[in-house]
């Protein structure tokens, strides 16, 4: 885990440590950001009285009123497209896409406008907005509720794409995303919404554009983000008993990619594997493997592996366990290397 540090001076007085889920930490981040900056508005589908389908916006409308938090019509392009206009006018909209697969109607607005506005206006118009996307699977969701869309966003210049893996980062990174002058696609791994941590708010962790070594090791670097950080940590714990020392890096930011932190870990261990739920072909892991290889080839003892979902549409709930990368599958993959040649 990243080491949380509290910052008593800048935010409201730090609370006593309390158990908080990731959903709760995100809610607290929105609440604190809205209290601090009246330019922050929150809208999307069912984010008002319901508090969002994952309850991330729970209680915000009651606290801040309908001019700050409201239910929009059910149309994702409309949500993001209107956020463009609001950000142009100086607001800092935080919009919710409900599920990865429902964000696709907003694809054109995000790729053609959100990502490009700063560039096409030579920096005169920034779009400080946060597009929150509950992402990935492992929650028994029916069709279209478990996609992993990160590669689409990460492949788009102009977007900042981050994905926290734990409650402390969720709070800290969302605050930072809202404060950023760049548009941020903020991906929230659904399966981690209910993970808990003892947190004293307001908590600030490392800057959101940095990866973090969340477990030190000497033999292998496992690279995960969002839900697969847990997978990597579980695999590392299991491997320890077999005498394999695994280092785990939580990417946290997918765009930009923290070459420095990840490269340093790889040069230490000389072996790496990247884990994600999304399909392998053209997936984010391909970029990770390619750029690490380009920059560190002569430090490598083995090819960088991608341990990912299969190249198939996300399965139905009863079959998803066979699709998702598990700690066992990770260890099997590591065993495929020619270890004797090391």
């Amino acid at each position: 885990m990243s080491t949380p540090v509290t910052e008593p001076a800048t935010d409201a007085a730090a609370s006593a440590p309390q158990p908080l889920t990731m959903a709760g930490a995100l809610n607290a981040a929105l609440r604190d950001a809205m209290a601090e900056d009246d330019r922050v508005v929150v809208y999307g589908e069912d984010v008002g009285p319901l508090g969002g389908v994952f309850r991330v916006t729970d209680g915000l409308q009651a606290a801040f009123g309908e001019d700050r938090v409201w239910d929009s019509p059910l149309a994702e392009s409309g949500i993001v497209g209107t956020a463009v206009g609001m950000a142009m006018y100086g607001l800092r909209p935080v919009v919710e896409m409900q599920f990865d697969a429902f964000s696709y109607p907003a694809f054109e607005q995000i790729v053609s406008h959100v990502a490009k506005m700063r560039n096409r206006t030579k920096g005169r118009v920034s779009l400080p907005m946060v597009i929150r996307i509950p992402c990935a699977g492992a929650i028994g969701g029916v069709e279209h509720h478990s996609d992993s869309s990160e590669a689409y966003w990460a492949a788009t210049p102009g977007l900042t794409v981050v994905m926290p893996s734990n409650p402390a980062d969720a709070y800290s990174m969302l605050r930072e995303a809202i404060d950023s002058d760049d548009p941020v696609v903020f991906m929230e791994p659904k399966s981690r919404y209910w993970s808990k941590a003892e947190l004293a708010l307001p908590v600030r962790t490392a800057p959101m554009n940095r990866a973090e070594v969340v477990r030190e090791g000497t033999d292998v670097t496992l690279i995960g983000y969002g839900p697969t950080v847990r997978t990597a940590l579980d695999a590392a714990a299991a491997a320890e008993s077999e005498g394999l020392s695994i280092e785990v890096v939580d990417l946290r930011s997918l765009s930009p990619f923290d070459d420095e932190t990840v490269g340093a870990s790889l040069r230490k261990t000389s072996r790496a594997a990247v884990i994600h739920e999304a399909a392998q072909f053209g997936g984010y892991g391909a970029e990770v493997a390619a750029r690490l290889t380009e920059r560190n080839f002569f430090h490598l003892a083995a090819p960088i592996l991608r341990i990912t979902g299969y190249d198939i549409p996300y399965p139905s709930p009863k079959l998803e366990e066979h699709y998702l990368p598990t700690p066992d599958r990770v260890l099997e993959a590591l065993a495929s290397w020619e270890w004797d040649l090391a």
Partner: protein
Amino acid sequence: MSLNVEHHEPRVLPSEKPIRLLDNAGHALRGRETGGFELPPVERLLDLYRRMVVARRFDVQVTALTKQGRLATYPSAYGQEACEIGVVSAITADDWLFPTYRDSIALLTRGLEPGEILQSFRGDWHNGWDQHEHRTAAMATPLATQALHAVGLAHAARLRSDPIVTLAYLGDGATSEGDAHEAFNFAAVWQTPTVFLVQNNQFAISTPIARQTHATTLADKAVGYGMPGYHVDGNDVAAMFAVATAAVDRARSGGGPTLIEGLTYRIESHTNSDDPTRYRAARDVEHWKRRDPIERLEKYLVSEGALTDDVRTAIAEAGEALAARTRDAMSVSPELDPLELFDHVYATPRTALAEQRAALEAELAAHSEHAREEVAAR
């Protein structure tokens, strides 16, 4: 402000016959055809006339420059001056315009210079003006996407109690896009101070309006969203201005959005790379040329004695002066710095992008070194 405004327009379809204040012979109309709108005062009409004539001179000049290869492309609005100028003239300098790529001449009314307007068509940079200075968004190329920006900006202004109006221009083809639907719906649900102008020039590149919609008029669509819709003669600038002014006033006073359809015709090709002979008859174009919006208003102004020789001369001179400024602006090629490509992608600097910038910088240096050596060798 409540976001749950109880607001119901009468469920009346716009008239199938477009609202018109001046007929094609330049006679002022009375009765049903006017839709109850008043003819604007003659001084206003004279101002609109002047703007239309100057705009056309600009449009013709830019089309010529494009054929000479000075611009990469130019979507002309020849024949659409009544829509372009009439509606944008109904908003103030504090209001915002969200144009498409065909709306260059409307930007003249917003005070933009030819060099700013045409920067993207020349291929220098994607957007050539300060959006906030002119309260004019960048021209949108992806159809109807800008309509949502107009709705969002209007909503933000309303949340801040700023009494501004946003004006979104769309074409007939764009009304088939999902974003047009979403923009109309968001605007109506949120009751934003937004006016949508749909310029029905009857072609989306080559596809005629009959293949775009089965609705009797595009203004009909407004009814389904719970906002007023007006079907207007888009070659009658008096009508376009009167209807737009009413819509802008209504929006500014909290009455919500309006959809205006201006029925007009695209006289020129879609862009210089289009070939309209493949999809429409010359006689159709001639038919619409005889319904020219400038000639119509000119006839009226002459009959009112408002168009003296002095005024005509002054307007012609203003047109020539703008054409000359346009030629001048397009005859100099600004020095483009390839390294600037990296400067405005993110507010937060990125290491990897700095590396790519350095790589291009080294490549450029190597090229110029190579060029120096070649010169020296000769």
